């Protein structure tokens, strides 16, 4: 069963959803999104409607609505394309959310490396302003105002985490904050703030126009709708795909023309899970293997040791450095992995690293440190012999 569909990149009449929204009360908008069971497409999968409801309930103003365009997970490049092709729709999604929670100011937090998108995005914003979709009394709806500003990130992976993103937006060092309080209560400048991923917002106008039930026909019971996947690695047709949630890895591999000798698939980027052939019939969805959309395919010729080391090196550099388990843990994990390369690793090294992983997952301050061990744990479990017996090129 092919589950390929096309929602995110399909055109929808600009303003149609907005008009529908303005005829309803903000609470009704929250209710529709809640009913649709739309969940965050950045990876964590927090229910979008619930997030909006939490912010809407707080009686503190001004409120802020932020689009998280800090797409930094290794192997994902879908938000970039959405912003290239469907920026007005994303902004319409923001406007709907802003109306629902009562925000009058928003930001697009754009990944530093996506700077080249800045001018076209700004042009879109300017045009929307001219056309009455941004600024004061939007679409003629009296009293509804929304200003939108683009802010560029400075290259830190952790700023994709919403509290770190907000810190960065405030001009501070990008570091995750303690939760609670959640941003919906105390976010940007300590005011109620919703941070939604680009892709999440792109779905919103469709849900409003077509209804929550329409959205439910796609995907699984717990993971409604479809999802964009950034597919890279050993396959014939790498690129961006939209599949319904619930697609199995095997189905996906077939769609993208992966070779029959596919050895492993990294799902969810460096912070995600590594699947081996045993897992290929598992579905990709929040109740199965969750993902923000990064799919990296490895064939038999690839060294899983190198894959693992590459991920851990990435984390070691990208940890914000504030909490002990993540900062120190990443270094120790890399050091442990390098032992195999040097020929000094043993099964004790593996058990030490697994114990370290446990502490990192349990005790790190934010989702970053908590998810660092995911790839390590799955790779070391599935490719244990390959990792232990790996010898660096110099030692061969």
């Amino acid at each position, binding site marked *: 069963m092919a589950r390929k569909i096309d929602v995110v990149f399909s055109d929808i009449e600009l303003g149609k959803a907005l008009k529908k929204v303005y005829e309803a009360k903000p609470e009704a908008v929250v209710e529709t999104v809640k009913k649709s069971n739309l969940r965050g497409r950045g990876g964590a999968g927090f229910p979008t409607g619930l997030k909006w409801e939490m912010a809407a309930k707080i009686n503190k103003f001004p409120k802020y609505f932020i689009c998280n365009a800090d797409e930094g997970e290794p192997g994902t490049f879908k938000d970039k394309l959405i912003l290239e092709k469907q920026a007005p729709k994303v902004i319409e999604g923001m406007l709907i959310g802003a109306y629902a929670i009562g925000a009058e100011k928003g930001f697009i937090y754009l990944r530093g490396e996506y700077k080249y998108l800045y001018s076209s995005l700004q042009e879109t914003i300017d045009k929307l302003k001219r056309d009455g979709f941004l600024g004061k009394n939007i679409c003629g709806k009296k009293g509804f105002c929304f200003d939108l500003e683009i802010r560029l990130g400075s290259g*830190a992976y*952790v700023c994709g985490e919403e509290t770190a993103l907000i810190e960065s937006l405030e001009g501070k*060092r990008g*570091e995750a904050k*303690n939760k*609670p309080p959640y941003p919906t209560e105390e976010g940007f400048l300590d005011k109620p703030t919703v941070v939604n991923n680009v892709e999440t917002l792109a779905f919103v106008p469709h849900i409003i126009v077509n209804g929550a039930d329409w959205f439910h026909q796609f995907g699984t019971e717990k993971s409604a709708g479809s999802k964009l996947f950034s597919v890279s690695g050993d396959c014939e047709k790498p690129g961006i795909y939209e599949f319904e949630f619930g697609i199995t890895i095997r189905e996906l591999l077939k769609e993208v023309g992966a070779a029959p000798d596919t050895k492993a698939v990294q799902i969810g980027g460096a912070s995600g899970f590594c699947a081996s052939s045993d897992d290929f019939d598992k579905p990709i969805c929040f109740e199965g293997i969750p993902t923000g959309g990064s799919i990296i395919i490895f064939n038999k010729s690839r060294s899983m040791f190198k894959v693992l080391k590459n991920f851990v090196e990435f*984390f*070691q*550099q*990208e*940890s*914000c*450095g*504030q*909490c*002990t*388990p993540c*900062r*120190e*843990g*990443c*270094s*120790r994990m890399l*050091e*442990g992995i390098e032992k195999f390369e040097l020929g000094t690793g043993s099964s004790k090294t593996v058990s*030490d690293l697994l*114990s*370290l992983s*446990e*502490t990192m*997952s*349990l*005790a*790190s*301050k934010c989702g970053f440190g*908590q998810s660092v061990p995911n790839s390590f744990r799955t790779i070391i479990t599935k490719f244990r012999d390959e990792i232990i017996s790996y010898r660096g090129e110099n030692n061969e």
Partner: protein
Amino acid sequence: MNKVRVFVNGKEYQTTSGMTILDLCKRENIFVPTLCYHPDLSTKGICRVCVVEVEGSKTLQASCSTPLSDGMKITTSSEKIRRARKTVVELLLANHYTDCTTCHKNLKCELQDLANLYGLTDLRWKEKRERTVKQDFSSPVLVRDNNKCVLCQRCIRACNELQGVYAIANLFKGDSTIVGSAFNSPLGEVVCINCGQCVAHCPTGALYEKYFIEDVWKAIDDPDKVVVIQTAPAIRAALGEEFGYPPGTRVTKKMATALKLMGFDYVFDTQFAADLTIVEEGYELLNRLKKALVDKENVALPMMTSCSPGWIKFQEHFFPDLLPNLSTCKSPQQMFGAVLKTYWAEKMKVSPENIVSVAVMPCTAKKFEAIRPEMADSGFQDVDYVLTTRELAAMIKQAGIDLKDLEESNFDDPLGVSTGAGTIFAATGGVMEAALRTAYEVVTGREIPFPDLNVVPVRGFENIREASIKIDKTKPEWSFLEGITLKVLVAHGTANAKNVMERVKNKEFDHHFIEIMTCPGGCLGGGGQPLPVTPEKRAARAKAIYEEDLSLAYRKSHTNPSIIKLYKEFLGEPNSHKAHELLHTHYTPRGRY
């Protein structure tokens, strides 16, 4: 505040919302280890040593940063928790240069305590860290050794939140993260007020002050030198902590005995100079008021105190426009130095070049103050060495002395005679209170109308305190003050001072006199005091200071017989030409960068 019912280790507790898990555990004496947490500072939740289990959470929660919610079920000790805490400490140790036996923080190190607590005798990760980065000796006062830094950010928070200086921050990211200054500049090249609150809040040996212990021993051992020591008011209420006394124990007279036993030739009291400061500063204030009210001159008001050297440097960097508002009076330490090497030297027929002037201060900024080029009005550097309370304690121990065993004795005459007004310089609000006791009496001829002379409104630990006192029935020469309400303000911690200064700049205040102390609580919470520092300890020390004040024969600076004699024999009048030459100073506008 909502009532919440929570369970800790199966036992039910009633409390109000707004508390964290750690707050409750502290209240109920349930032990949870901490490291990055400090009661003076905002909560970061980054060391992850204090993690606990909360039912329903997949991950462990930092107890310091997790607010209680109704029905919460918390476990503070389990195999899972112990394993996580132990691993966290192990990770910190693995990246910590452990030269414990030669580390100045040995046996006073919070990381060492945690390592012992979790029985960490062997590390799973690599061999121990060596000293891989150079220590930063660039500051005149403070030393940073990042080989021992655990990145708890307590120093950063102290610098930002308590002091508003922002000299340090986390730099870089990932495993390259370090604490440093803008553009990774050495501390000596950025705006730092030398207050030492970073040192006072550091749990390990990563920060310390420049020591003069060996220099002072060398001076003591030199038979040609006359080594004179002055001890600041705040020392007597804190030194005992280093010898096992509970915080707030007064050890004034035991300390005097110890100093004599150690070989100091004369043991004097900075409080003598504090009294002198009050007389000079009190008259300076009255003269400024006269200029403003009678001569209609454009003088800088409100006048601000000048005895806290961190605050002086703060003002030079951040509010150079307000430097004319600072009293021109030197601090008691420097007045003492100047008087010692002139008046006392003459009196004792000692050549000033043979005098080694040592000061014990609760303060690290005093080390910088002593080496300011303008602090040499005696013709020599007025104060040669400044020791912190911690350094003095180390020296007493090196001399084989236990304070507890000692008899009590008095300071030497004449520079050891002081009043309770000098004592209370140690506490925030104390200089103000001492000044009011004198100024009011000078102007009216009557004692300040507070029971027992205790000017309670300026006492306490509120960030900013204000008081006013009506002046009437003045003496004829001060009649221009008749009917005036003297308004004063007190603040401590330069972050609070910053707030006050902004408002002074915006002319929101009509106060006449403002006291600023650099450190939280004033000198008794100074950066050179025994560690660790807590609000409870500061409160206990303050209590001791006010008790000492009450216990003294003289309570008003202008009644100090040694001060009266000093004016008569040497200085003439308060604010005389000679007094100005020796006891007053000027300030240097400094940049922000």
